[in-house]
């Protein structure tokens, strides 16, 4: 093992690690879209008016949320194909999308719920009084008001998701993390490639965090104004 930091290794590792960037970014986006969609499933399931069913859904969500995503990935990748009857072999990428997607969908479902709960009772009553169908009520009245205030929170989860994606390197998704580790294994110098990974994360996540903070301020003023009119 070389003892010190070497810029030569750094420059050598840089293009190698960057090869994984596209996979990391596309995995993040796919996972996130999956979580956004699946979040609606949870929100829908929790609205079914049956106390027992509701209790089960709540605890299933709690279970998914409070157990490690890493183990969930292993479960999908190694264990799922072994389950008789329903088991199918999943590619590393698909396992990661399902695993991380479902994990974060439980958080995103809660965000949707908080948005829907914040809608004034009068809005529900008005849509009933105006004889809106269920689909129209949700599409034209409830969701257009419920979703925009949750956008900054949803945006934060995009960044959180981005930072969880390197977990997928453990099941063989060739993102920047796996690239750095395999460079390390080939050349027996892990420090430089891992530093590159850290820098890439910092460079991509910090500006997005700043952007979301700005968005939040903008939205807050907008919705506060509405509140003042009310």
């Amino acid at each position, binding site marked *: 093992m070389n*003892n010190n*930091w070497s810029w030569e290794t750094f420059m050598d590792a840089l293009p190698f690690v960057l090869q994984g960037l596209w996979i990391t970014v596309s995995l993040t986006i796919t996972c996130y879209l999956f979580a956004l969609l699946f979040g609606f499933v949870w929100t829908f399931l929790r609205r079914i008016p049956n106390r027992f069913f509701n209790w089960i859904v709540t605890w299933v969500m709690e279970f998914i949320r409070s157990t*490690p995503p890493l*183990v969930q990935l*292993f479960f999908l990748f190694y264990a799922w194909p*072994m389950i008789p009857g329903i088991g199918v072999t999943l590619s590393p990428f698909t396992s990661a999308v399902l695993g991380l997607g479902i994990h974060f969908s439980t958080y995103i479902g809660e965000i949707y719920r908080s948005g829907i709960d914040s809608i004034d009772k009068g809005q529900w009553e008005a849509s009933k009084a105006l004889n809106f169908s269920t689909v129209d009520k949700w599409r034209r009245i409830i969701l257009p008001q419920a979703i925009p205030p949750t956008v900054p929170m949803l945006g934060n989860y995009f960044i959180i998701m981005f930072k969880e994606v390197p977990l997928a390197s453990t099941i063989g998704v060739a993102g920047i*993390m796996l690239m750095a580790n395999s460079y390390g294994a080939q050349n027996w110098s892990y420090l430089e490639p891992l*530093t590159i990974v850290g820098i890439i994360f*910092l460079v991509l*996540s910090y500006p997005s965090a700043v952007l979301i903070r700005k968005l939040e301020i903008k939205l807050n003023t907008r919705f506060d104004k509405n509140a003042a009119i009310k």
Partner: protein
Amino acid sequence: MNAIIEIFPQLARGLHVTITVLLASAILAYLMAFIAGLCRLSQNIFIRKFTGFYVEVFRGTSLIVQLFWLYYAIPMLFGIQLGSNWWTGVIAIGLNYGAYLSEVVRGSILSVAKGQSEAATALNMSRFQRMRLVIFPQAVRMMLPEFGNYTIQMLKGTSLVSLIGMTDILYYGDILRSSNLSQAPIVYLLVLVFYFILALPLIWLTRKGERISKKGVANG
């Protein structure tokens, strides 16, 4: 059923590693949270910027990267052997969540109504007294639910130490899986159940924290 009885004690061998890593990294994270949270409110611009740098670096990169980085970098850059991977895991998790929690500490202190510190000034309290007697006790209550949530996150984070060769619950799960592939579903399901059982008291404490933080506080 037999399989469960066989696997359960195998996994339980990793329990003490998971729990000790969780406890130690939680203590480190809480400590870092208060130190960094208060430093970011310091009047000294150098201290403020320096802690800001720490917080942004650890929040901006992911835990698994930090863990591996520390694992390889500490012995290489500083020539120190920490003695065990246990410390590497604790330091990585502690510093990472300490950075997140410092934002909670900072936010809670800033959200204590301004009239409170003005009243304390009017009562001729020093800056330190103001913080210790008036602001801090009110802020701590607000922090409780988030501290609970992040402790659950830390529990989930401890599963990563198996990647640097620590013998935690997941490590034994992986060993069982590789010895008998068809067992994988039941093994990983049990690993998940183990983590969930460990999380239950934390979930309960978080809910209790939520109640305490709301009690006796006027809304709006």
